[in-house]
Structures are given as C-alpha cells and as structure tokens.
C-alpha cells in the first residue's frame, strides 16, 4: 500500500441526517454527521446504546437511506447510486462483521465464506475460502452448518467471510456483543490481526471503551450527534 493512499479519505460523510416517523412525531436518530476516515485507519465509533451507532454504520455501508446528507465511499457518492450499484460497490470494497454473526443457516462454513466471492464472480472462491477458514482456525469445521458451531466459531466464519473479498474497508458492529469475554478477546485479536495482514481500513462500532482504545481514533456519538 502506498503512503499517499493513507492520506486519502476512503470514507467521508457530509451533514448525514436520519429521521424516522414514529406515528405523529419525527424522531431524529442522526443529525448532521460529518466525519472522515482515511485509508489504513482504525476508527472506533462509540456511544451508549441507542445513540445511533448502528444506524450510522448502516448508512456508511449504504444498507439504509439517509433523510439528508451524503456518504462518499472510495470517492463515490453512494446515494446517487441505485440499490444494485450500491450492492456491487459493497461487494467490491466492504467487509462486514455483525454482532449476531449473520451467517446463512442454509450454507456450510465454507459456503458462507465463498458467498461474497461468488457474488462478485471472483475465481478460486473455494481455495480462498478454505485458506481463510484455516487462517481463523476452523480447518476442521469447513463443512459444518452455523447451527453446529459455537458462537465464537460462527464469528470466526463471519470474519473469514468479511476478509474473503479483500475489502478496502471493514465495518464491524459490536463484533463481541454476543460472545463471552474470553471468546470476545480472541475474536478481537483475530480481527485486528487480519486487518493488519490485509491492510484494511477498519470502522468499529462498540460501546466498549477498552475495545475502542485499540483503534487509532475514537468518534463519540451521543443522541445522534458527534460529540468530539
């Protein structure tokens, strides 16, 4: 990775606002969020439960539409794209790790990892998936279904899947939220290791202060606004 890349913002938002209608009144979840994430950075978005962290992450990934404002991902204004083009963009440059793993129950571990590769029509999907699962320590579990795996193992599969397409940006939403603390620590270690190995930019959403300090920068969110 070239040095001048590091200076480039891979992700920036402008006045990002999200409101929802709850019957008679409008609820503002996010208000005028301006942030910038440079390539190679590891940024933690922290905040209490209900502060709008996950909504922000979803908007950054283009999984949801804002009420107003912009998100530029890899220099592309994603909300000028249609849903299909956004999906294609996600497939190309984003990786996800979710709190509740979000593996497809119909697919085995290796198939889950192969899924994003096959969706983007990458070659050698199986070899890549096998290698990644070996890397996360699941070489013996390739053909198990999510149901047959423990929570920690499922999250390892999810991490392997997140790195399968070699994304530029990894978005992680409370990746340890559903795990016990010992397993959580292992998962975090694994995630940061892979992040380093792949030179990926990381945006991590968490309410865990300790975890957030492992990132190079912290952004705090309270009542839908950035507080620092």
């Amino acid at each position, binding site marked *: 990775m070239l040095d001048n890349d590091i200076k480039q913002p891979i992700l920036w938002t402008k006045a990002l606002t999200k409101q929802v209608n709850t019957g008679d009144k409008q609820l503002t979840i996010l208000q005028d969020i301006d942030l910038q994430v440079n390539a190679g950075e590891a940024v933690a978005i922290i905040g209490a439960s209900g502060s709008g962290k*996950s*909504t922000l992450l*979803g908007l950054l*990934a283009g*999984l*949801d*539409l804002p009420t107003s404002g912009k998100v530029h991902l890899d220099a592309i204004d994603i909300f000028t794209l249609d*849903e*299909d083009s956004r*999906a*294609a*963009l*996600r*497939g*190309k440059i*984003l990786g*996800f790790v*979710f*709190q*509740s793993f*979000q*593996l*497809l*129950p*119909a*697919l085995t571990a290796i*198939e889950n990892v192969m*899924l*994003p590769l*096959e*969706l*983007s029509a990458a070659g050698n999907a199986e070899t890549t998936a096998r290698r990644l699962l070996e890397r996360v320590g699941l070489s013996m579990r390739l053909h198990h*279904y*999510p*149901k047959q795996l423990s929570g920690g193992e499922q999250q390892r599969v999810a991490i392997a*899947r997140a790195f399968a*397409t070699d994304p530029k940006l990894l978005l992680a*939403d409370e990746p340890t939220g559903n795990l016990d603390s010992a397993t959580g620590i292992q998962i975090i270690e694994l995630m940061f290791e892979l992040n380093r190995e792949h030179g990926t930019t990381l945006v991590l959403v968490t309410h865990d202060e300790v975890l957030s300090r492992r990132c190079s920068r912290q952004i705090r969110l309270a009542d839908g606004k950035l507080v620092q």
Partner: protein
Amino acid sequence: MLHRDWRAGELNVLVFALVIAVSGMATVGFFADRVELALSRESNQLLGADLLVISSKPLPEHYADEASRLGLSVSSLTKFPSMISNGENNLLTEIKAVTEGYPLRGRVHLASRSAETPEIQVVARIPQPGTIWVDDKVMTRLELRGGDLVDVGDIQLTVTELVVREPDHSVGFINMGARAMINAADLPDTGLIQEGSRVSYQLLVAGEIKAVQQFRDWVKPQLTKAQRIEGIRDARPEIKAALERSEKFLSLAALASVVLAAAAIALAVRRFTQRHLDGCAVMRSLGASQKQLFYLYLYYFIVLGVIASSIGCLIGFAAQEILTHWLTGIVDTELPWPNWLPALQGLLVGLVLLLGFALPPVLNLRSVPALRVLRRDIGLSNAHSIAGYLLGLVALSLLFIWKAQDLKLGLYIVIGFVSAIAIFGCLGWILIRVLSSLRHQAGGAWRYGLASISRRAVSSVLQAVALGLGLMALLVLTLIQDDLIDDWHTSLPPDAPNHFLVNIQPDQLQPLEEFFQQYGTEHPPVFPMVRGRLVKINGKDVSPENYADDPHAERHIRREFNLSWATQQALDNQVVQGKWWDADSSEAVMSIEDGIAKTIGVKLGDELTYDIAGSPFSAKITSVRKVDWDSFRVNFFVVVPPGLLDNYPVSYITSFYVAPTEIAMMHELVRTFPNILVVDVAIVINQVQQMIHQVSQAIEFVFVFTVLAGFSVLYAAIASTQDERIYEAAIFRALGARREQLSRAWAAEFAILGALAGLFASAGASVLGYVIGKHVLHLDYTFNPWIWLIGTSIGVVGVLVAGMLGTRSALSSPPLLTLRKIG
C-alpha cells in the same frame, strides 16, 4: 395476544389461508348445493312433479291430504289407453285426464294451428271440461282440425289445442303412441273407466326437497302391491347416472378444496410457530407453566378459527350469490335458495382444519426450552411437528369421509392421500438428499437454491408435499372433469338417435328401406325383437308372486321381455361375466343385462325359459353384459345367437336421428306405415343434452373456485418462508449481491421445489384419477401421458411465478432494518 398478533400482522398468512379455504369450500358447497337442487328440479320437469305415486287402482285420499299437510303442491292424473274416433277414423290413444295444477314441474307447450306459422305457447292451464288437447299423431291420423269433435267413450269433446310438448312425456315404449289430454271432470261421463280397465292413477307431488323426502318416507311403508313411487331417479336411468356423477364430482371439487385448505394451513402454521418461539421462550423463562401455555393457545386458536371461518363463510355466500346471478343467464332454471348446511360445514371444517393442523405444532411451543432466551438457534425438533401433522391427517380423513357422503369415495380419497403423502414424503426426502449432494457441482444460483432446499430439508419436503397434493387435487379434478364431460358428449352426441320405430313387420323391411332411400336418408340398422314372458328359471316356475317383496322385479316378471338376436355384441355393451358366443354358435345360450339379472336374481349358468306366443323357449346364460343406458340406442335385456328365434313371431325396431327440419318425413312415414309405432324421444334427448350442458358448465365454474383455493396454498407456501427470505436477502445484499443475483438463487430454489411438487402431483394424479374415474364415477379412464409434462410445468411455473411475486417485498426491504431486527 390474538389482538396484538393481528395488529402486528403476525396472523396474516394463517388467517388468509383459513379464510380462503373456508370461503372456497363454502362457495363450492353453497353453489353445488344450489346447482344440485336446480338440476334435480329441472330434471323433474321430465316427470311433471318431484315425486309420483303410481297405482293401478284409485289412490287413497289421505295420500294427497298428507302431502298437502306437509306443504307440498298436489295434483293428480289418470292415464289409460282408449280409442278416439273422428267419423270412420279410429286411433288407439293414451288419454290423460288431469286436474287443476297439472303439471307441477315444467309446462305444457301448445301450438296454435290457426295461424299460418305455428306459434308455440307455454301455458299453465289444463283443458276446459268439454274439450280435448291432442298431439301431432292424433291430429295427423284422425285428420283433425281445431274445433272438430271427437268421440271419447260415451261423450264428444271439442279439439281445442295441439300439444307439442308435455312434461311427463316418458320414454316407455308402451306410452309412446298417440296422446291426448282431457279434464278430469269429464272422465266419469266417458264411461271408459270400468272394472278391469288398464288404468294408471297418479298422484303428483312437488315442493321443498325436505318435505318431498318426508312424504316419500311417510308413504313408502304404506304402499300396497299395486302402488309404487317414482322420482326422477327411479324413472330415468340416464338422468340418474348424469345427476349422480355430477353430484359426486361436485363433492370431489369440494373435497379438493378441503385438501388445499389443509395444505395451506399446515404451511401457514410453520411461520406462526417460528414467530412465536421467542415469545414462548420468554414466557417460559418468566415461569409460565406448560399447562398455562396450552390453554392460552387452545383458546387463542378457537377464537381465531371461529372468526376466520365465519368471515370465510360470509365471503363464500357472497361469492356464490354473484356466481349464481352470473349463471342465471346460462342456466335456464331459476336456482333455488341454498340451504344453510354448507355454512355450518364451512365453519366446522375451518375449525377442524385449524385445530387439527395448527394446534399440535403450536402446542409444541409450550415445550420450547426457556434457554432459547439466551440462544436463539435453539428451536423445536422436527419430530414434534411431524407428529403434529398426524392429528391433522386424522381430522382430514374424517372430514373426507363425512364430506364425500359416500364411504367408498371418502375411503378411496383418504387412502389415496395418505399413501401419496407417505410416498411423496419419502421420495422427496431422498431426492433432496441426492440433489444436495450434487450441489457442489452446480453453479452459482443453483447451488444456493439447492443449499436452501436441503438446509430446510424437512420443511422443503413438507412444502413440496403440500404443493404436490394441492396440484394433484387440481390435476385429478381436471382429468376427471374432462373425462366426465367427454363421456357425456360421446354418449349423447348432437345426432344421438331421437326417434324409434317399433313394431316393424318383416315384410315392411324392404318398403321401409325404399322409403328412406326416397328421402335420401341412410337406412338405419334394424334389430329383431321377439316378445316373451319369463316363465321358468332353471326349470322352476316363476310367477310375479315370487317377487312380492320387490315391486320392481315383480313388474318385470309381469311384463313381456324383449328378446333379440345378434352375432356380435353391440359396441356400447360390455361383457362383465362369461363370454360372448362364437359367430357360428347354434347352442341355446343367451346374454343377459347385468341390472335385470340382479333384479330377478339370476346368474351365469342359469337356464331361463320364456313363453313366446304360447311356445316355450329355453336358453342358458353364458354372458352378463353391462349396457350403457345413457346412450338412447336400441338395447335389449336378453340377446341370443341368430337362428334360435327364427320360428317365433318377430318384429323389428330401429332408432335414428331426425333433424327438426325433417319432421315432414316423419308425418309421411306415419301415414305410409300406420302399424309402425313412432316413438319420438327428441324432447327427452334435448332436455338431457341441455342438462348435461348445464352440469358441465356448473362443474367448470366450481372448478375455478378450487383453482383459487390452490392459490392460497401457493401463497401460504411462499409466505411460510418469508421471514427466512427477508433475512437471507439482507445478508446477500450486505455482502454485495445484486437483486438479480438474489432473484436467480431464489428462482432456482422455487424451480426445484416446483418441479418436485409437479412430479409428485403428476404421479399422484395419474393413479388417483384412474382409481376415482374407474371405480367411483365409472368412466372409461384414458391415461394421459401429457399430464406429466403439464403437471411438472405447472409446478415449476406456478411456484416460480408465485414465489418471485411473493418475495418481491423481501427483495426490496432495506437490509439494515432486517439485520438489526434480527440481530
């Protein structure tokens, strides 16, 4: 909880399936009921009443009194043969003396001859005292004109009307000569009714079906030997067959909608249980006992069932009202008001289906491990839900037998469906296992389709079986419907014989042939006929008294049988026992019709002796035939090889089609061959053809509703996996899948599911169609190899299209919302 679930839209699928199912069933039920009533009423026009009490002696007055007391319309008539004369001309005529109110069903059609063009008039009156209405034959043979006087017994009556059609124009050959109608008030003055006269006294009764039945039940035990009752089914075998088949078909259509309903509910309840797992786990963890949960859900489902079924019944009633209004343009008869039984049935069926199919799996919710609160992936074992369906199947079987109102039909269907479920289930399981082992070789979309199917193996099998059963029910109905309608049309084509010539003498065969040639008409085949009275069975004397218990058999013994000879058996006859004779056989053998053999109690190998004009004739039964009486072709109870009856007096009989425009030829024929009895069954044939046409249409309409019920199954099947799909879509989309990629994966899945269901349905329909067609409706079932292609295509296309339409919303719901909801 019900209210909350309803608001949250949790019950949509279940309620929708139930409402559609019950309304479909109620529509079919109400409508079939009304059509049935209309058809039997229509066919009763052939009888002039709903029920006749016929006697050779005057009928006791309390019969009519009881009928009136039951609220029935009553009329009576006296029928007897007598000479009518106009100067030198005499004619043996069947005279009918009628009372006010005749006929109770149908109308008398008159033609006024005064005008240049005869005008048909439909009247609701009877001849005035002092007048006589005659038919065409009397007019022609007695060379009458309106206003002429004719001698009837001791009095003279004025000819005022020409009757072209009267309702009770029966087909019995004896009754088919010239006919005349007089007012019963003139009857005593004619002096024609004396001790020993051959008179038929008839009491006509009509009204509400229930009251008619009550009257029938009341009068039956009181009948003397001289009396008998006759409804349309007793009188007209071809109508009886058509009515019974259409009734069976309509009840099959109703049954098919029950199957479809069951399938829809079984599928819908899956989603319900999935959605309530969490709630139950929470309640359990908060200390709710299993018993508390049991009562909670029992109550919940009873309330749900009653509400949804009631809505279904209302919709069903409204739908059939619309259908009826629409149909009245096509069906001539006014459809009678339906009775309320179908509503009750709908309600009951809805509850039984819901409780049978939905309650067991839902009750399993009470055994949800409270641990699910902590680990969402802990669910219920599939063994639970499979056991749950068993109760549903038992409930369904009972419903079948009850709805079919025919133990045999019900059992056939139950056995058919249970074996189909078992076979489809096993086959589906194996196929899915095999397919999923192949999925690693398959490319992108197919791999994900197969993966989804095999991951949900149990529910995929359930879906394929449910869809397969639904489709099977539809295919079976289609197959049978086509066969049924074809069968009617072929047995009664537009040019079915509508005239019979009876009593053709051997020396008239040649002149008759020349007569036909002169009119450029093909000479119809003639059949020899010898009349004889049955006197001995296996050498033992037979007399009507031997059959005192069975008035039907007694009448046959009392009357003369028509015997005929033939080298080959008629095309519409089928030997069911024994063997037809060789062409050169000269043994004293005979072939007897199945029904008459049963009636008089004879079997293969028995020797029957007839008295033919004073000489005995004996022959042994070597074959028993089934005769298609629907066909209106000439048929005989007893047929012997040629040569045996050469020394007995013979006359000939023939039947042929005369177009309405060729009626002049018939007048000429009557004049040329005065001794030949011309029997005109055109009216009857027209009526039967019209009825068949109406039944066919009713069946097609009812079928449309069954198809609609089929859609509810599809909807339920698609909706039952909706949650999983929304979730799947969210992940796919988050991972960068385009809509098209996701659609392709789902399309593959639906196509595989549809193909499985289609294969099951085709296989099942072929077998079940054969069994029902052959053994229940007694049709010549024709195996249709296209059914495999059609069934599979419908399965694939139907599930694919419905699936893609049904998952459109899942495809477009924002992924974040879903992931957060589930996360």
